[in-house]
């Protein structure tokens, strides 16, 4: 039926990298799958919010509905780490989500849906080195909905903070503890370069970190 455009309900290149099922079998499973992998969730998004959105694709009159939701958790902290599985009773409902929900916003983030081979024990946990998702390991941006900086960046920041904290551990009191700084100009002129850092886009994130959990990345802010 679709000779003009590509349907949105086709399996993408998403796959369970740890699945040991062979390719042909995987495709067969996907063509009947009732389970979706949902990505790019905010860590703060609740199962009820997910339920509310995905129930719009349910067909209870056809024996369908949301069977269960499995929240993706950080392996170490057991806190949501930004993905989940939504399992329906029918394949058609999973396809409907691919067509109508994938690429729309939930909790003000564009989420993505992919057909999944089906939930297996252990898959509810992040596979990143730090316990969360792999993508949060190397992320370079500041994403307040997903714990701020990527895990690696966070570790680097913790390292920096430690350095900062240790740097003045040897500070002393009393006269002579603070250097004088040298006298006025005498003979040779030095170039005065400002050491003050310019304002960078990341600074936006510092404000958000304080409390806002939502990320307003509305390029498409709408004028009513």
């Amino acid at each position, binding site marked *: *039926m*679709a*000779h*003009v*455009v*590509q*349907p*949105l*309900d*086709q399996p*993408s*290149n998403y796959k369970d990298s740890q699945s040991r099922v062979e390719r042909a079998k995987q495709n067969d499973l996907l063509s*009947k799958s*009732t389970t979706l992998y949902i990505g*790019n969730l905010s860590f703060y998004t*609740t*199962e*009820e*919010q997910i*339920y*509310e*959105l995905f129930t*719009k*694709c349910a*067909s*209870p*009159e*056809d*024996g*369908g*509905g949301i069977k*269960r*939701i*499995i*929240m993706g958790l950080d392996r170490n902290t057991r806190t949501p780490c930004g993905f989940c599985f939504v399992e329906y*009773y*029918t*394949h058609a409902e999973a396809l*409907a989500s691919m*067509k*109508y*929900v994938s*690429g*729309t*916003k*939930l*909790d*003000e*983030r*564009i989420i993505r849906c992919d057909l999944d081979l089906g939930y297996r024990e252990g898959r509810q946990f992040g596979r990143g080195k730090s316990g969360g998702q792999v993508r949060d390991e190397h992320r370079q941006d500041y*994403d307040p909905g997903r714990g701020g900086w990527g895990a690696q960046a966070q570790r680097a920041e913790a390292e920096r903070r430690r350095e900062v904290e240790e740097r003045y551990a040897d500070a002393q009191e009393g006269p002579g503890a603070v250097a004088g700084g040298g006298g006025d100009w005498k003979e040779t002129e030095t170039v005065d370069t400002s050491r003050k850092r310019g304002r960078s886009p990341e600074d936006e994130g510092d404000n958000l970190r304080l409390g806002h959990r*939502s990320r307003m*990345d*509305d*390029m*498409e*802010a*709408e*004028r*009513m």
Partner: protein
Amino acid sequence: MSYDRQSDRPHRGGRSRRYRADDYDTHDRRREAFATPEDILKGEIIKLGEDAIQELPRLAKQIREQVPVSVPVISEGIRMAVTEQPYKIPYYAALLRLLHDTAEGENAESSTTSSLGKQVLEDFWKGFQGYLDKLAWREIRLCIHLFAHLTVAQIISIESMSALLQSFAAVLDEFGVSYGRGRNAALSAIEGLIISGAVMAKSSSSNTTEIIKTIQNYNDSIYSSKLLVQPMMSLFTESRFVKNTDEVLDTGLAVLKALDFSEFAEASDSFPQPYLDFPDLDPTESAPFELPAILVPPEVIELDGLATDAGEDAQVKKEEWPHYFLHLFDDITTPDPATPTGFLIRSNILDTIDIFEINRKECARLLLEYPKWCVPGTFRPKPGAPVPEFESGKNWQLESAVVEAVLGSLFLLPDSTHKSVYHIALITELCKLSPSTVGPAVGKSIRKLYSALADGLDVEIARRFAEWFAAHMSNFGFSWVWKEWVPDLALSEQHPKRTFMRRALEFEIRLSYHDRVLKTLPEPMQNDTNVISDQAPGPTFEYEDPANPHYDAAQSILDLLRGRSKAEEVLSHIESLKTTLEASGTHVHVDSTIRSISIHCLLSIGSRSFSHLLNAIERYLPLLRGLAGTDTESKQDILSAVASFWRLNRQMVNIVFDKLMQYQIVDPTDVVGWTFENVTGDAHLSGMRPMSLSAFEWDLLRGALDKANGRVMVARRKVAALRKEHDDSVARVKASGGADVGSMEIDTEMKPFKQGTVQHIIVLAPSLTELFLPDDSASENPQLTVALKAFASLTREQKGALARTIEGFVSCLAPPPSAGRQNPHAQTVVTEQAWENRSEWQADEWNTWETWGWYRHFCRTYSPYLRNYQETLGTVGFAKIEGSTSPAAKLMKKTWNIATGQEA
């Protein structure tokens, strides 16, 4: 995460890249990797378009130069293009016109072989015949568009075209033609006539007037069904014409009549006719193509031999209803569907919405590109685009027209053609593509709909409106100018505008969270609990307070549940609590109290998330079963406890009820019964009210009825699958030459069916003989026997739930004088006089009016089921008001009769 990030992801394989990439650069997108020259040619045909008029000769040349010329390839390309891109049809007619010319160097042969165009058309006809056989109505209608244009282009003979349209009109004279078939056939004839009428009218053998008459007669015959699906609900009117709405057949007829009156003078400049730019064909050189005569094949009724135990047919055939569309904008802003141009534009837009449901992003792009397929000047040029030289254009607003059509299709009653979330997502994509032009159109539409709420906008449309509003806002930062609705806080708290605000905000909170939504409101709304609750929708654990007399009992149960004690232990502990309570003698309703405490405790340990709820239920299923017992009363207690625990969160009430049905703790009929016993509408907000339903109660009812219906559907598929499997294995045995079928163990070949897996089985429509098995063969197969038994009990449950619903509505709207609870407004709000005075209405009147709305919606939504069981349901459900002549009782019966097709 920005939207275009997706395309940066690493891709494997070009196939996924093509449609994952979200840039809308048409040239990139069309870099297709077709394999064979045939595919390339088909692709070229489908792609026709950047500047169709200039491309046409080049494309015609390319088609001719293909070696070897393959007529089927060309015609298939055109067939795909026509049925999937309705807006380009006039240009494909022009392409065929070009292919009709004798190519240079072909002169010598022209006398012996027919032109390439004619050969292609002959082959195209085969495809059309295929659509006819399948009764693929949209494809049929779009092919008729092409034929109609070709008739104007003199390629198809006027006589054969008029005979074709006559064949579709003939469908309308069939005895007992279904509405869906009737509308489709009528639309095919109407649109064919609008396009080709101008040349047909000039012909001596014109049957145009006759066809119009046939459609008119048909349209008159389906008069009453229109009353139930009008977007503006009127409980008293008998008129099918309602202000600011139009029904598609009414409008089509009006267009045709006007055209007929003016002898189709208006038609010619209503749509593009690029083929007229070419010189007239000489009929002596090449005779026009004669379309073969057709007969529209009858609808196939699939019988699967499955009846309920009362012998009723349990098969559900989706009922089609007349299509009414809301007009949100005036005729200066968007095309008037009652004109030839307006009618065809709406038809094009609706077809585009329908066809590209598989890819909403592409759909949005195509819709915004639509003007390039229209007569220049039809739509206002884009801001910044060069001002065209002509003055006579209609200059309609494309975005308003598109949003109006998408919403029109979202608001069709009783159901939209696709899931409502498709329309919602499509509007989101439109806004993303062109925020500065679509945004305002969306904003205006919201305001128009909001003001329609005061004038009787149908309750179901109002519900979908709230759903769309919330989902849309959740995609655009919840930025709505709520301030402009502050003056409406003066209205009665149950005025439709007030209930809309409340529901829209409730839906927004479900998709987001309380504080986030609260922040978007102006202060007068923030502080009004009739607009938004003052706290986040958390659980209400009644026995949490140490001052509660049952605090200790609740704590002791909680301790057991938290300690993951076995369900049996908890049950026996509850029994002992009960004994203590009874012994104390100070408590009445000990059973109910115990149930309430236990359910509160169970929900409390499951209150942290949906998964926690499922875990709690699953771990304590035996406990729940023990509490539910076998009597209706205890199930009512359980549902009441759930509703009280989640009184601040209606979403959770819905979810818990659904899962309690799923785990078979309660039946759908219990939920229906509970809903009607406890209906207060939104009455808890302002004390006790007469019985009435709000959208929340409707959601509960719908959840229960859909569950009952869905189960029957699954059971039916299971039986069909088992029968097929059974037959197949018998056939296999026979085929392998096994003489003694009887000794063969068929069962060992069958995989056991588990709950859940059966839902994935796609049942190919089995033939009658495959399914019709004598009883003894079923008894050979124990699984089939079990499945048939399940089917019988599920259809009983289904019928019970439906009957209970009707009874419930009767008790709300037309209770017999003897009934304990009476709603004095049920009789009065149905009159025209009362409606005209609605500015005086208080909460009770509005609640009652809404309840009438849900009753209508129940009847039209479930009409296929109601029809199957109309004898029983009609008798049981209306027993209490049999023979009553009160206006309310009469309106109830009339609505029922229309829905079940007993009133023409």
